[in-house]
């Protein structure tokens, strides 16, 4: 018997994806396809809420975790929270995309279709507890991403972004699959719960470690951690900016979901192998991302490097705890806290970049000078999101940093303290370029080439206003009441391998 309530979010989202495609076929006004998509996303949130709150609801039976399909698909607290993050991220990306696509002649219906299909992949990934389901979900996230990155068909930068992203993504997939085939060969299973129970004699085989290495390599491509990060700024810059927003949040979260679940659930007994690897990747990502970001003159590229650095911060607690052999659950909760807050503030930052970009038609930081003179509202939003990314209270980013630091210090040991020191230094470095953007927007004189009167007259499109409003409110609320997200993260750290086995 299949527990339909547990997979209802996936079913609704899959039907929405198809409905968007049909709407695109039958309507002339492609705007409706986006409306159908958003309605579907709201409908998807309902079963997610009923699943999470099942205990308190009348007529609802069965509590989390719900184990389906012989343990390969588990809906637990972690899965529900991450699914909600994906649905939220795609909702904001959709709002940003509507205004962007309406502003010029783009294919619209297909865009929404692909974007929602990618979100479905993320939702499936959150529940996957075997490699096959996980990889299918991962490809459902990546495949549409390749196409969306090349959406500006006539633009050579967009072409280049699509091809770079594609080659990197597919190579990463091949490495990941190779790792999975080796692990399968030595253990005879690809189910996480069974992998976690592998006898020590098999774990000691070199092939097992080799397979693990390939799996880690495959995921590092996805989360754009150093040394496999070079594609990130190029793709964000070349792709249409709403796609950059989705890739930096949705696609990256998908990579993290994969990496965290695989490490935590499938290979907990070899945390002495992958722990130091993630620890090193975290340190390198923060340092390289931040130091290169300082030199950037293009805001989208700056956000690209900043997202590399943030990936390092997200990995830090988990990598340090695993390397030191400490309790993984707290570190896991800290990583999820950071991931959730990062999703909100990075979507907001991209949103405001798009709003400014559609007015100025350029993403060069120099042209942002004196934005406060011609749009005080946008300048304030720039301040809110970029300072939140830097981690300044009372904006949400500070709590992400706090959770990260307290988790790494709680790990203790040389692993925990060293990464906390590196992260602290990096936070200062990051402050340099985030405040540079804010300073440019507020205090620099307006360049002569910019016609202030014309810019003052322009409005921000309503869907974009909504997206900016939601993210701005969330960045403030999560900063002032950080308990909300830490409860969510604690809740999500109740990860279950497979209770049915």
């Amino acid at each position: 018997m299949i527990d339909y309530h547990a997979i209802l979010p996936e079913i609704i989202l899959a039907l929405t994806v198809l409905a968007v495609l049909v709407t695109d076929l039958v309507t002339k006004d492609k705007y409706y396809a986006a409306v159908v998509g958003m309605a579907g996303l709201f409908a998807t949130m309902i079963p997610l809420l009923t699943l999470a709150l099942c205990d308190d609801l009348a007529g609802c039976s069965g509590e989390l975790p719900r184990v389906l399909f012989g343990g390969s698909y588990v809906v637990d607290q972690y899965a529900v929270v991450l699914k909600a993050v994906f649905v939220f991220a795609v909702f904001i990306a959709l709002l940003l995309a509507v205004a962007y696509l309406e502003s010029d002649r783009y294919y619209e219906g297909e865009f929404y279709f692909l974007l929602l299909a990618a979100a479905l992949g993320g939702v499936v990934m959150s529940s996957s507890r075997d490699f096959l389901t996980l990889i299918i979900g991962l490809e459902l996230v990546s495949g549409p991403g390749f196409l969306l990155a090349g959406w500006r068909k006539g633009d050579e930068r967009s072409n280049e972004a699509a091809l770079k992203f594609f080659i990197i993504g597919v190579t990463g997939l091949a490495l990941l699959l190779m790792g999975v085939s080796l692990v399968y060969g030595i253990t005879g299973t690809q189910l996480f719960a069974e992998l976690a129970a592998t006898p020590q004699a098999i774990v000691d085989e070199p092939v097992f470690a080799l397979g693990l290495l390939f799996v880690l390599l495959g995921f590092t491509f996805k989360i754009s951690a150093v040394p496999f990060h070079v594609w990130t700024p190029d793709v964000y810059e070349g792709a249409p900016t709403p796609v950059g927003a989705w890739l930096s949040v949705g696609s990256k979260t998908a990579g993290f979901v994969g990496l965290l679940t695989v490490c935590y659930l499938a290979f907990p007994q070899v945390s002495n192998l992958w722990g130091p690897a993630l620890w090193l990747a975290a340190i390198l990502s923060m340092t390289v991302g931040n130091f290169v970001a300082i030199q950037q003159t293009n805001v989208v590229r700056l956000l690209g490097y900043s997202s590399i650095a943030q990936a390092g911060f997200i990995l830090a607690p988990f990598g340090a705890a695993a390397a030191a052999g400490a309790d993984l659950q707290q570190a896991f909760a800290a990583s999820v806290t950071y991931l959730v807050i990062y999703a909100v503030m990075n979507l907001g930052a991209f949103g405001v970049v798009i709003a400014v970009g559609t007015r100025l038609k350029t993403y060069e930081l120099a042209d942002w000078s004196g934005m406060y003179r011609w749009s005080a509202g946008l300048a304030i939003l720039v301040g809110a999101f970029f300072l939140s990314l830097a981690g300044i209270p009372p904006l949400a980013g500070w709590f992400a940093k706090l959770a990260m630091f307290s988790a790494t210090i709680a790990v203790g040991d040389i692993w925990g303290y060293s990464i906390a020191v590196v992260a602290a230094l990096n936070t200062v470095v990051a402050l340099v370029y985030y405040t540079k953007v804010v300073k440019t927007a507020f205090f620099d004189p307006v360049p002569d080439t910019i016609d202030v009167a014309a810019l003052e007259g322009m409005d921000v499109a309503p869907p974009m206003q909504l997206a900016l409003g939601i993210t701005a409110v969330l960045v403030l609320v999560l900063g002032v009441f950080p308990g909300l997200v830490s409860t969510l993260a604690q809740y999500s750290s109740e990860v279950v391998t497979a209770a049915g086995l």
Partner: protein
Amino acid sequence: MMTIIQWILLGAALFSVGLYGVLTRRNAVLVLASVEIMLAAVNINLVAFDTYLSDPAYTGQIFALFVIALAAAEVGVGIAIILMIFRNRHSVDVDELDLMRY
């Protein structure tokens, strides 16, 4: 009678050839072909391990079927992107795609 070692060596060799191709080829179509070689190596591995383990659930073989489907989807996407680039530039040389760096 072939042993598992021979199959795995074949898989490893094919995978290395594919990876070498991805890193060195300049024509985007050949890069795509090299990726396909890597995925084919994965399939050989999966099926070989499946038979070697006499897996009652045929996990490896079923996995290989999914990998074939994934590979087909990737080729579809990849060829579409390469065609788009060819229309704009009349070349699919990946070394020429250097508008954005650093």
